[in-house]
């Protein structure tokens, strides 16, 4: 079995799955239970100044009968007294010396406030500190959380204060509510942070009640933006992770990155690792199903590593980063077409309508005698399952017209039914960047572009 243990900026944990700083890590009771279930670490719910919470706190996005594809919250940092949190952190660390216990913190933007909280946290024996620069609601109105995370200079300043005071590793948690997440990441590096974690929650309004017209969740008739998390944010998190991990400044520093944002299964976790994450934080999935989910996260990840001949998390970390590129560097001559497996196809014709209505009209319905037929071509007197099933045409891709958009592949409900097949290139490889360098006129006026297409045999239909 592959070794799942990690050493993240000097913080050791038996597996890469940590509870993110959030409601699941709000108390000693919870973290103790999570460690019993097998979690490798926990980032304690943010400690800091006194707060008061509201109800209702959580909104969610449900879709197609599936619950909580995304959750948002207007819950604040820990509302339990600081000394209670610190006492429980100390107890947990003593009971679980092999697990990573990191404490998230957020205090007023004054050096003495940060020095004091660092001292208090270090005194518990915790393994590290995570600086919460991400909370998008409530705390930001008080000049903390994302109010810091959105200004790289503030990030750097506060991180420097903390680094001056701290002897344990300092992780800077970034907000996604910013135009370019790379800037605050560089600020963290410049201030000497030991690690970066991302993403915090995204500004959101999840729903409006169609009967009361109230924003959901409704807090006495009012609602507002809250931090969005869960499966729905994973693609955004992966993009931000790859942007930070491939940034030359960040990469050169060698700073480790703790990835989070929608990690629900080991598969999600593996993708974060491939894009450079060195530890994985989870909140929503635990809030949906409880701490037990970590069992398959570890089991599945370990078996997958074995199947790939990889021995450790370090072996897989960042393995896909060399694939991260930009449009200008893509090979414009690479060609793939969709192919439908007639054996697996159940003839739902979702590929047909998607292609025909919204893509490139290159899927035909072919009857058993090979003729291309139109949909709805049966008579009003024909009926019965045998007739309906027996006469149903087969969707077939007209490969010469397929642009390889991959829409049909994405809508097909059957596993491995539609595949995107690489076909021989019709011209030599080139990129948009190369064209801008060698034939800039092609990128600037349509006449030159048309001529270029004619020369290269590029047909747009």
């Amino acid at each position: 079995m592959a070794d799942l243990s990690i050493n993240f900026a000097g913080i050791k944990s038996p597996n890469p799955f940590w509870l993110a700083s959030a409601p699941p890590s709000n108390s000693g009771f919870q973290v103790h239970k999570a460690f019993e279930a097998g979690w490798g670490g926990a980032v304690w719910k943010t400690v800091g100044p006194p707060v008061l919470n509201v109800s209702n706190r959580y909104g969610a996005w449900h879709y197609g009968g599936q619950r909580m594809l995304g959750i948002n919250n207007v819950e604040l940092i820990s509302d339990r007294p600081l000394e209670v949190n610190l006492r429980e952190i100390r107890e947990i660390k003593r009971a679980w010396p092999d697990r990573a216990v990191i404490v998230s913190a957020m205090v007023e933007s004054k050096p003495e406030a940060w020095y004091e909280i660092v001292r208090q946290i270090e005194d518990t024996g915790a393994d590290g500190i995570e600086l919460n620069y991400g909370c998008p609601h409530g705390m930001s109105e008080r000049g903390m959380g994302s109010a810091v995370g959105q200004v790289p200079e503030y990030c750097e300043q506060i991180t420097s204060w903390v680094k001056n005071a701290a002897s344990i590793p300092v992780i800077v948690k970034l907000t996604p509510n910013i135009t370019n997440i790379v800037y605050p990441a560089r600020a963290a590096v410049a201030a000497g942070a030991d690690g970066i974690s991302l993403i915090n929650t995204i500004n959101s309004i999840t729903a409006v009640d169609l009967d009361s017209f109230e924003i959901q969740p409704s807090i006495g008739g009012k609602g507002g933006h809250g931090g969005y998390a869960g499966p729905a944010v994973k693609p955004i998190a992966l993009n931000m992770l790859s942007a930070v991990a491939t940034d030359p400044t960040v990469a050169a520093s060698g700073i480790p990155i703790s990835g989070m944002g929608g990690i629900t299964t080991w598969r999600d976790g593996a993708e974060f690792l491939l894009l450079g994450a060195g530890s994985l934080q989870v909140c929503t999935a635990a809030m949906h199903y409880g701490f037990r989910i970590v069992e398959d996260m570890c089991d599945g990840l370990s078996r997958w590593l074995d199947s790939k001949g990889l021995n450790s998390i370090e072996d897989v970390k960042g393995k896909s980063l060399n694939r991260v590129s930009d449009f200008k560097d893509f090979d414009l001559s690479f060609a793939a077409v969709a192919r439908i497996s007639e054996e697996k196809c159940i003839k739902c014709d979702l590929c047909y309508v998607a292609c025909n209505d919204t893509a490139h009209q290159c899927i035909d319905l072919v009857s058993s005698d090979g003729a291309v037929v139109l949909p709805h071509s049966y008579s009003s007197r024909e009926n019965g399952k045998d007739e309906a099933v027996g006469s149903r045409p087969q969707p077939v891709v007209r490969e010469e017209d397929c642009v390889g958009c991959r829409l049909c592949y994405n809508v097909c409900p059957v596993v491995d039914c539609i595949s995107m097949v690489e076909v021989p290139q019709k011209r030599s490889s080139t990129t948009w960047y190369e064209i801008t360098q060698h034939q800039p006129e092609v990128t600037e006026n349509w006449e030159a572009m048309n001529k270029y297409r004619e020369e290269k045999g590029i047909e747009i239909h």
Partner: protein
Amino acid sequence: MTDAFLTDPLGELLPPLTTQEALVESNRCLNCYDAPCTHACPTHIDVPRFIKKISTGNLIGSAAAILESNLLGATCSRVCPVQELCEGACVLQHEHRPITIGRLQRFAMDAAASAGVFPVKMSSVGKGKIAVVGAGPAGLSCAGELAKLGYEVTVLEKRDLPGGLSTYGIITLREPKEIALYEVEMLSRLGVKVESGRELGCSLSLTELQKSYDAVFLALGLEASPNLGIPGEEHILDGLDYVERSKIRRSEVELGNHVAVIGAGNTAIDCATIAKRLGSNRVTVVYRRTDKEMTAYPHEYEFIKAEGVEFRFLSQPSRVLVEAGKVTGLECVLMQLGARDSSDRPIPTRISGSEFVLDVDLVVKAIGQEKPSLAKSLGLETERGYLKVNEDFQTNLPGVFAGGDCVRHRGAASTVMAVQDGKLAAAAIHKKLVNA
């Protein structure tokens, strides 16, 4: 409906879907394009459209989508052999469970009924008066479609209650009569007038109808069971009458220690179910061919076996044994199957000397219905005994159309086929009158 299900042995077999069940099931539908379920439905209800409306909580819109293609959507959702039609064609057939289309349709129709609405788009393009003879599914469908177009429609029904077989002839556990009667009430909201006690050939003359109306649609249905031609036949109960009693006059349903049901079609299954569920000790279905040839749907055969009903295949009744006016047995003779007949079923022939007696004390026959007997006297041409109609459901008489079981000389007769006949005939009548 749930209470009835719990307390009445003949109460509706399937409980209504809960809102939660309907939501989960409607979300499971793939929303196929040019969906095979829609193709398989004789009335071509846009199944994915009404199902997706359930998933968005647009239940009245869902009922409207159903009614657009089938005004008897509530009846059809209950009585359709969905395994042979929409659900049988569902693309989720093999690796998954097909979508329970029938129950979702019932959910949407029930929702509209609870809201007291019958969402149908009306128009006033049609001008004229139409007479429909027979208030069964074909007649009601035709009447409703024509009323939708703006025609003044009168349905003339010989029985006390409208609804035809939906009211009288389909076992309550599949369709309570209240559903059929509610549908008629909804159609009357569209302007359809229903007059009961009007029988063609008695209180009604076809010639008069032709004179007073712009078109006549005959939805006569079929007659009683044919005679078996065996001694003691007068002691055999008629299957459709047996079902009718169970729906309308429950206290008059006769039960026995051991009941024989002759025939193996859907009505025979219904009779056997009634006899068994209302308390007969044993029920035996007697059929001259085998389970491979029986006309009951496979799912009904499975159902009745699970009810504990027994079968005697390759057995033909030859005599009802009667003592002191009471049935004491049914003598049968064993059969063997030979060459195939015109309906491609093997012809059974008697094995002489193989007589045996079933010790039954009640005999019910459900061996199909006689063909429409009025045809000759009304001057209507027939085809294999059924009314002869062209592609437009028009008979040989001017302005007289016909549809439903009375014209069904090919294929299996079913409620939904009758509904489609009525719909297509209405379109043909409209076309004819507009172009006249």
